[in-house]
């Protein structure tokens, strides 16, 4: 490549890089910088080395509790959302009019604003006149204080999250499953394989690369489920539904501990990176991918 051509290419990439640097690189590096500072967002930051990180690890029970909440939330949502999406996608694989219509129905919640979803589910979960408790009571089951009880609030939000995003994953699964050669199913049928055997021996192994994408994407979604949590419980009661993102937000904007919030953000990034790496590794081992 000639030197002038190379310069032109660099120049052409510059606008995109400038936007990336301004919107992503600079804030990320700033975050790293502030994580070593004590800063309230108003007065001059003070360098305190690793204090924010050591305090987080040794003195902050709330952070540990919230980290635990986030893991539980993530685990529940990843399992249920992935399984449901795969199940629905299996049934909606063929491009019939009914399947396409149902895919649209399943996908519909995804296009709603998360705050609207939160408000709607707040009504559904209302302990005294909500639809869910009314249904339970109609079959003789006592209703629960879904969002107001520390024992249930996290699971109630997890259920909403699953309802909210399963349709999106169905679409990803349908696209992935449609790549599986039809001949494999035809051969299996000739060999007398049942539907379950077809699923176990063809669909599931062939869908693993798509599953890897769905699981990674869902995990990341669960660690950034801010709007839903904030609009439904604001992390309450007594932090029982607090997630890392809501905790970081409150640390920065309600407690004005911006340096400490930056350190919490760094931990969040590492947690998501680690989880994604572990998931990728597990799924790669299963598919034999190198």
């Amino acid at each position: 490549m000639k030197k002038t051509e190379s310069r032109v290419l660099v120049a052409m990439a510059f606008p995109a890089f400038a936007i990336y640097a301004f919107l992503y690189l600079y804030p990320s590096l700033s975050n790293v910088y502030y994580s070593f500072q004590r800063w309230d967002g108003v007065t001059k930051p003070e360098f305190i080395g690793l204090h924010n990180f050591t305090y987080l690890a040794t003195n902050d029970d709330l952070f540990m509790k919230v980290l635990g909440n986030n893991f539980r939330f993530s685990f529940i949502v990843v399992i249920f959302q992935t399984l449901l999406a795969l199940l629905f996608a299996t049934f909606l694989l063929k491009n019939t009019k009914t399947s396409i219509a149902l895919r649209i129905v399943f996908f519909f919640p995804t296009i709603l604003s998360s705050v609207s979803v939160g408000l709607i589910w707040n009504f559904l979960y209302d302990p005294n006149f909500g639809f869910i408790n009314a249904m339970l009571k109609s079959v003789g089951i006592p209703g629960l204080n879904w969002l107001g009880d520390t024992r249930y609030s996290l699971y109630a939000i997890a259920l909403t999250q699953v309802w909210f995003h399963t349709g999106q994953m169905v679409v990803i699964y349908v696209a992935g499953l449609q790549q599986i050669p039809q001949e494999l199913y035809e051969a299996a049928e000739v060999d007398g394989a049942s539907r379950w055997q077809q699923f176990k021996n063809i669909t599931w192994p062939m869908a693993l690369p798509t599953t890897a994408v769905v699981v990674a994407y869902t995990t990341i979604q669960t660690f950034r489920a801010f709007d839903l949590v904030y609009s439904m419980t604001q992390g309450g009661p007594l932090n029982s539904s607090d997630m890392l993102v809501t905790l970081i937000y409150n640390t920065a904007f309600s407690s004005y501990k911006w340096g400490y919030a930056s350190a919490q953000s760094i931990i969040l990034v590492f947690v998501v990176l680690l989880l994604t790496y572990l998931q990728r590794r597990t799924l790669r081992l299963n598919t034999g991918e190198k």
Partner: protein
Amino acid sequence: MKAKGITTFSARRFGAVVAVAFALVATTLPSATAAGEVFGKACTTEGISTGQSTTSLICTMGANGKLTWTRVRLGSSTAKPVAALKAQPGTIEFHHWRPEDKVVLQSIIDKFEALNPGVHINQVIMNSVDYTNLAYAKISVNKKAALFVTSRGGQFDQFMAGGMMKDISSNRYVSQNVIASALTPATVSGRVYGVPYQSLFNNPLYNSEMFAKYGWTVPKNWTELLGFCKAVKAKGIIPFAWPAATRGNAGQIMNSFLMNSAPDLATLTARIAAIDTGKADLTSDWFVDIAKKYKAMNDGGCFPDNVTGYNDTVAPADFASGKAAIYPTGTFGMSTVTKLNPSMAGKMKMMSMITVDTKPLYQGITNNTFILSVNAKSTSRDQSIANAFLSFLATAPIAQEYAVGTSQHVSIINVDYAANIDLLNTSDIMGKKLLLAPRFLFVNVGTVRNPLEDALIAIGGGADITKTLTDTSKTIKQSLGA
């Protein structure tokens, strides 16, 4: 940990608040008649008032149990209010948190712009939660935000510490148009840095028609309050539609619990400061007593079932539809109720929530907030526009338009509430001994006040007192140390 500057500043604010012993009280000064009513003569309906001017009369019940016309002391000088200032041409932004006021404020802005050709004021509105969290970050880097609003306490302190507030003490409209006592939350070391525009009364609203129908009277002490809950619940009605699932409004009753919890204001302020700075625990006897009363209200059937899941969408709806007798928030809740059920207009009255059996120190809560300030970092031209608009808002006809249009009492002299029956009906609270909302003495909002209120909410929902307060104390101390 806060920087030294802020700590010192907060301490000063505490000192200022100690000095506040603030109350809008009925006085026994002679003279004056208004609209036919005569000072000192008997009146028939408690709470009826002739306005909020220096000559206004209000019908209040005296110690002898008789209703008489008394005067509202405004704490103002006798100087006459002044006209609005003129503005230089230019464009500024006005940042605030009340989307529900947008139309009324735009109408006022239109009038101001008509009087001042070449001036443009653009409203920039966030909801109150976002505003609390993001306003400083946005306004501190935006010189065009020449006029902005802060809430009393932590947010005002934050803007002061950031050098964002221009001293407006020398303006005549400040000293002559605003009720002097209302300026306290915006006054630091004798200098005024904003006009707290709204006079809120954070006391429970009750359905006076329902009370009359069942023959209930407003409970005058703690024992009566618990007895009242029993009587109301027996009728299948929710006594207190307490929106425990919405922290902001759930916290309003904490003001009532705090106001008579200490022998005097100085002690109360010191106790709050001790918790706010981590020197005292929530497990102190004083705070445990408050928590026990939340529990007693829950045990006594005062709150709806599953109260910790009962939010501030359902609570006003229950109150507006007659399913609840009391909506324990404040005057700012009236417009929501009348929007839900217009026939509630004129039926709401305000009660003192007394949580002691001894003689109460205070009979109610007030708060002067929505503090309008001029941005010290804006250009002098933009500051002059903001200041002129602020002076315009501080004229009685404009303040009245705002008050009536938004169902808010205001801190401006000579405003007549006759055009809004709900404001008029709740004006009687001004005749009582009021305390400036002590909830806002907790200036560490995220680290102390929010978890503390969450703990009280949980206890009000039936959680174990000792465990909840011990756990929350630990969280607060750890957060303060971070």
